[in-house]
């Protein structure tokens, strides 16, 4: 029986039941209150999804209450993301207060990307469960060790970490007797740059810097410039305006070929990104990851797994947007 669990991005409370029934073991979502949106929303977003025109966050406390009821009924946990890379000094007490309110409602685990926020919460004596976000910074075993005193319960490895790197880091911490969960990206939204090193806007009215048209040219010698426009990743399906047919599985990023290596590395949770994606897409994606895990259960050999998984999930060919390119034979 496989041990890796699926953690799925949730854009609104209404999708929770559907995602659970599709096979998600847990969900994560953002929570941005109206008070925050009114005071800081424009220039200091509470988390990385700073758009207003999409349902990418839980936005009202009453929605959290509704979600709590669902979590109690279905028993699949929901982690709340507070994953801006930094905050302004006056915002830390506001965030601590908001997190305390969420805890009162029964939400106990939070995904943080700003080390200062983690430090602040612990200094305030808040004992919530903390997941170190994939956007916290580069994670190597020394970085993980440095933050152990602040008691994180899960490390989410950043995108662009190899399974071998994760394995080495996990092995080191296990040897130290550290009890921790480990999460890796498995599907959707592979960015061309690293989230923890990305300081640009992700707002409604402007394109992302990573998606601005560019030319591959010379440093000091004029060459024929090759024009490129990244249209593959960055936005959610809804943001790309795809309404009708579902886009192909893995179009914006896929790590399903690497599941055997991730499992062997000690990964406990697979991240299925897509807060705010169409619920139909997310449901399809959750079912796909669940099927891949089931295949992995049945076919232990990595090569045979990849062959069978591709036959079942990518019969028409895969989009080749690989999270773990070069780590296994294609």
């Amino acid at each position: 029986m496989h041990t890796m669990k699926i953690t799925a991005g949730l854009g609104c409370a209404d999708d929770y039941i559907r995602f659970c029934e599709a096979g998600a073991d847990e969900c994560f979502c953002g929570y941005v209150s109206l008070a925050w949106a009114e005071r800081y929303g424009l220039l200091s977003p509470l988390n990385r999804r700073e758009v207003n025109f999409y349902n990418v966050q839980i936005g009202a406390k009453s929605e959290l209450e509704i979600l709590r009821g669902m979590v109690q009924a279905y028993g699949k946990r929901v982690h709340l993301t507070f994953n801006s890379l930094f905050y302004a000094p006056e915002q830390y007490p506001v965030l601590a207060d908001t997190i305390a309110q969420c805890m009162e409602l029964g939400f106990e685990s939070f995904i943080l990307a700003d080390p200062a926020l983690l430090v602040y919460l612990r200094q305030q004596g808040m004992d919530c469960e903390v997941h170190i976000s994939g956007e916290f910074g580069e994670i190597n075993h020394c970085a993980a060790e440095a933050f152990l005193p602040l008691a994180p319960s899960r490390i989410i490895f950043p995108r662009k970490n190899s399974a071998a790197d994760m394995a080495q880091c996990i092995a080191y911490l296990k040897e130290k007797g550290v009890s921790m969960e480990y999460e890796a990206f498995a599907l959707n939204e592979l960015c061309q740059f690293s989230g923890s090193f990305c300081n640009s806007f992700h707002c409604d009215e402007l394109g992302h810097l990573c998606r601005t048209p560019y030319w591959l040219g010379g440093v000091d010698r004029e060459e024929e410039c090759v024009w490129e426009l990244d249209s593959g990743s960055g936005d959610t399906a809804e943001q790309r305006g795809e309404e009708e047919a579902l886009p192909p599985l893995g179009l914006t990023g896929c790590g399903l070929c690497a599941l055997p290596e991730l499992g062997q590395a000690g990964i406990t949770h697979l991240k299925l990104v897509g807060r705010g994606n169409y619920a139909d897409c997310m449901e399809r994606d959750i079912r796909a990851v669940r099927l891949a895990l089931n295949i992995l259960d049945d076919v232990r050999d990595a090569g045979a797994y990849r062959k069978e998984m591709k036959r079942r999930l990518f019969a028409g060919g895969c989009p080749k947007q690989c999270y773990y390119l070069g780590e296994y034979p294609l």
Partner: protein
Amino acid sequence: MNRKKINGAPMIPFALLACRIGESELRVTELAAEGFTVRCAGELPPCEEIMLSFYHSGAGTYRRVRLREYTIEAGEETHFFREYLVLTKQEDYRQETGRLFREYQNYISLKMTGDDGYLSRELVGYPWEREEEHFRTFEEQKRVWMREACEGAAGQKFPDGLALAVCLDSAKWREAYLRLDGEEFAAAYWAANHLSGHPIAGHPVDRIYVGNQFCSHLFPEEEEFFAVLEKARAQGHGVTLMLPAAQERQMQERVRLLEMAAEWCEKRGIRMEAVVNDWGTAWLLRDRHSVLEPVLGILLNRRRKDVHSPYKIGLAGREAYPRDGYGLEQQGGFQELSGTGLNSAFYRTYLRETFGIARYEMEACGYLQKIPEGRHSLHLPFYQTNTSAYCPLYAACHEGSRGRQRPVFACPEYCRTHAFLYPSHLGMAGRYNSLFGYDRDILRSLRILGEYARAGMDRVVIGML
């Protein structure tokens, strides 16, 4: 339960429209001109006042509408929530609802075109039509920008109280440093970077930065690295080591490098700065503070940096560098971007006590920042906006697609010959594994450096990519 149907738009995003009843924030689940529905887990709180907040995307603010005349009907009840229908004939509600529908519809239509630049033109006047214009080479754009900087700074003076450092962040500059002595190197560096006519070129170089904060493949080989250290010592230059973020597989190598650097310092009785860009390296340094002083690197000192700032709602039209500098208390706009966790004493204390970090590397990034207490360095004129742990340039040159990234073990340094060029008006460039913006004001107006010097910055670091 039967209730009146309003046939409204379902699930308008909460960030566009929210409802407050008493102390409770509620989601509007259906919106129409004659009313709306909200839902909550239990009973609707006692209803003294209903307040709706409508988002105005053009201004980036909310407009509140207080409902005075309304009726409420209990609606559908599910296992998890109960809906309530609020009906009103209030004119300001109808107006705001109509406006919100139009804005929402407009946004969705623009998004459906699939062109971000066009959408930005329609929403904020972004010059989409200029996206086709770009320089022919990276050097050409640098030449044009530096000429403007020199013209702008003519007759100005490099502020007192600031030391000057230059980055040897690639083989090209390291080789020049090893080949040329003192003023000869400085003259060659300013000339190669089109800054010979700038007041900054008249200031002696006090320090060199060796390595690269963003790309691990641009760190020098052992022999060259120590040759540069020796040369700097002979020239009387201070040295700051720039260490890029280390991935797990690079940690052994990182430990070895730090051991060698520490030994070199110990033998010579020198303490050297080491700029760290991952917490693991900072942690490794904790036993070596007597010879290697950890400094917070650019990738760990995070803030909002984007060449689109002049078009961003809330920033457009605002003074990025106020004429009265720190004397002017701005509200909103760039003021909101000016501080980060480093401006909080609790975090500075944590960094000092846990990692021994008291000095921070900052960047001129197009607006005036609040300088944290202490003595820090300001990098200019380029600022990092995006970095990839794998290399987009390698992927573009080797795989034929910037998105086909993978770990690179033997790098042929495509960045010696290639760069990503961007629309000229944006003032940005793609070098090695990162994107950089260009601060057009910082070299043109040395008054800004004077502001920073007064606020606690004691060093300017020139990095020309």
